[in-house]
């Protein structure tokens, strides 16, 4: 079985790669078809993943684990949303209310916590790692915030030059990191394509 899964994965990968490099009509058609299948399977994976999540939380509730009441809340909310969503449709006022009154405010509050968390992490950074790179990181972050923040007196003199100067280094650094990531992604993809790494089929 594992050889069959590997053969399917490798063949699909090669066809999609060839279709990308050589956009011949037949290859492109095959590539689009395989991608469509993958999207359908991905959609089914979401359903399987959600069912798995429900079972994990039900298991926690059954074993009366710590904070399992939140799991119960999640399962009940999910069932209510799915039932009403299926019965009333996604454009119904109930679904809009669920999104606007629950999901958006909760995510916004997490965003607010995130801002505080980042400030707190920056304060603790020097305690954790007091080296040259940490100091440069913090100084650049503070200079950047000074340059972009609104002030009662209007723009700070020289803020544009400061931003240009900082961007020169940060863009260069980001591009360097992204180039490294791109090379890493390429080699990782090739390992999967050649069947060396097989994170599927129980290999």
């Amino acid at each position: 079985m594992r050889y069959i899964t590997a053969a399917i994965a490798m063949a699909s990968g090669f066809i999609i790669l060839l279709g990308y490099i050589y956009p011949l009509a037949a290859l492109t058609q095959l590539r689009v078809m395989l991608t469509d299948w993958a999207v359908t399977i991905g959609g089914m994976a979401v359903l399987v993943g959600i069912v798995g999540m429900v079972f994990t939380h039900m298991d926690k509730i059954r074993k009366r684990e710590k904070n399992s009441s939140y799991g119960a809340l999640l399962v009940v909310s999910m069932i209510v949303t799915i039932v009403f969503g299926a019965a009333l449709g996604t454009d119904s006022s109930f679904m809009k209310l669920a999104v606007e009154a629950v999901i958006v405010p909760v995510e916004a509050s997490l965003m607010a916590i995130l801002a505080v968390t980042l400030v707190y992490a920056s304060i603790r950074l020097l305690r954790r790692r007091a080296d040259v790179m940490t100091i440069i990181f913090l100084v650049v972050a503070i200079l950047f915030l000074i340059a972009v923040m609104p002030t009662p007196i209007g723009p700070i003199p020289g803020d544009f030059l400061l931003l240009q100067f900082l961007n020169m280094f940060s863009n260069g650094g980001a591009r360097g990191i992204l180039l490294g990531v791109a090379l890493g992604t390429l080699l990782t993809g090739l390992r999967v394509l050649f069947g060396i790494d097989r994170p599927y089929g129980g290999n």
Partner: protein
Amino acid sequence: MASVIVGVAALLLLGFTFLRRRSPAVLRRIEAFERLNRAVGLAVEEGTRLHISLGRGNLFTSRGGSALAGLALVRRLAERTSLSDHPPIVTSGDASLSLLSQDTLQAGYKAAGAEEQYRLSAGRLTGLTPFAYAAGTIPVAHDEGVSANVALGDFGSESALLAEAADRENAHLIAASDNVSAQSVFYASAQDPLIGEELFASGAYAGAGASHEASLQAQDVLRWLVILAILAGAALKLLGVSF
């Protein structure tokens, strides 16, 4: 051009894999991976848990590369910790990735001869949006006796919440992401951040085999080729040669 790059990378990977099977590579010291090895040993001895977050890297996009690198590490860690009382938990924010993490964990247990210890709930989907993923993952770090967290994959700025959760529990956090925002967040908040392509070195440092070591060598060669290409391009531009 794309075919040339892919072709050269493939040849380098296969060539170096052949060489590395004969003589294993000597890897430079990376503090984060040394801590990870210690944390794995401690987790098994102390009866605590490892928590591995694979992020939200969708396998149908270019973000899937970091997720696949994370899965290679999961496989090795599952093998090494399969006999622990508290096996590792893998969380992800993408459904396909969570299925692959379950499959990879099972394969790791099987390779270690402990397949009966495997539980399906060890590989979890915790949320499908960035903050839902963070909100679903934080309780794992808080409530499940985790002594070390590994965040390896595609994250956004929500990674700060994961780092904060690990810090509150005094648990180690070894973190790497292919996303520049998450990189800067991890640099500020993780004890052991990995920078850039170090993310893809995790398999080699966890002992995943010759092909992972060969990947690192191929990356080094390709990086030099990219540097030479950039310098040559800049020189040609200075000389007024258009291309």
